[in-house]
């Protein structure tokens, strides 16, 4: 293990409780469904309850778990509480895309280098 790995390990230990609650939040299939739904569009608690065939109380509990880990944010306007995807979800996807991008760029850079080397074939 190199220095970067130790650094990550340090973070993992330091952040373990936050990680635990995040993993617990997304371990539930209904909550993953809620994240997927909110990824497409914002929704009120009652809309979510209807979509997932659940009581308002049950849905409030799920949303509270997601809100606690910043995967979802909510805002009360009048009698309606609107849920939207939280900043953490965007960060996660952005970080994944950035690393995926690095992999793809490395691959095509190699392709281009190969084609330059073999240009006179």
């Amino acid at each position, binding site marked *: 293990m190199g220095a970067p790995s130790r650094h990550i390990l340090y973070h993992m230990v330091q952040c373990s409780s936050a990680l635990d609650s995040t993993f617990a939040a997304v371990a539930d299939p209904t909550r993953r469904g809620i994240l997927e739904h909110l990824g497409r569009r914002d929704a009120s608690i009652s809309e979510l309850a209807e979509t997932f065939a659940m009581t308002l109380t049950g849905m409030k509990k799920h949303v509270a778990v997601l809100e606690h880990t910043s995967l979802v944010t909510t805002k009360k306007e009048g009698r309606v509480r609107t849920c939207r995807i939280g900043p953490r979800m965007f960060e996660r996807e952005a970080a994944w895309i950035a690393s995926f991008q690095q992999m*793809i760029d490395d691959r095509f850079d190699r392709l281009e280098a190969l*084609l330059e080397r073999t240009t006179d074939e």
Partner: protein
Amino acid sequence: MTATTIRATITTPTDREIHIERIVNAPRDRIWRAYAEPALLSQWWGRGNQLDIERMEFTRGGHWRYVEHGPNGIAGFEGRYREVTPPDRFVRSFEWDGMPAHVAIEFVTLTGMGDGRTRITIVMQMHTTAERDGFLHSGMQQGMDASFSELDRLLAADCV
């Protein structure tokens, strides 16, 4: 890191797709060969890592399997060709050993741009959003060295 790198465009147009586009400075037929011929493919697909092309039956129904030997371990990829239409399109199933039996369908299209360059378009379709995220996450697993800073940032974000 090179300052002049032409970057690929990577988007997630739907919750079950990854769309990749990159313009490469070479004509279409040469890029097709770089995909079709194992001796060429092994020189670039592994991004500088040793790449064993264990199977390469580049025809409809044929199997393919690549094994990449990276600094942090071995990663295998495999699938079967669904369509092979030289010199500009092939479609194949794509499975990463890290997510066994989660199969994506990969559409690769080469489009000549009329100026000696070629646009490579890759669309990866998955069955579920979880699978798509898993494939995106595979970039972290495979590109570990390049991605340590990303992973650090991700983990640091968990401390908020």
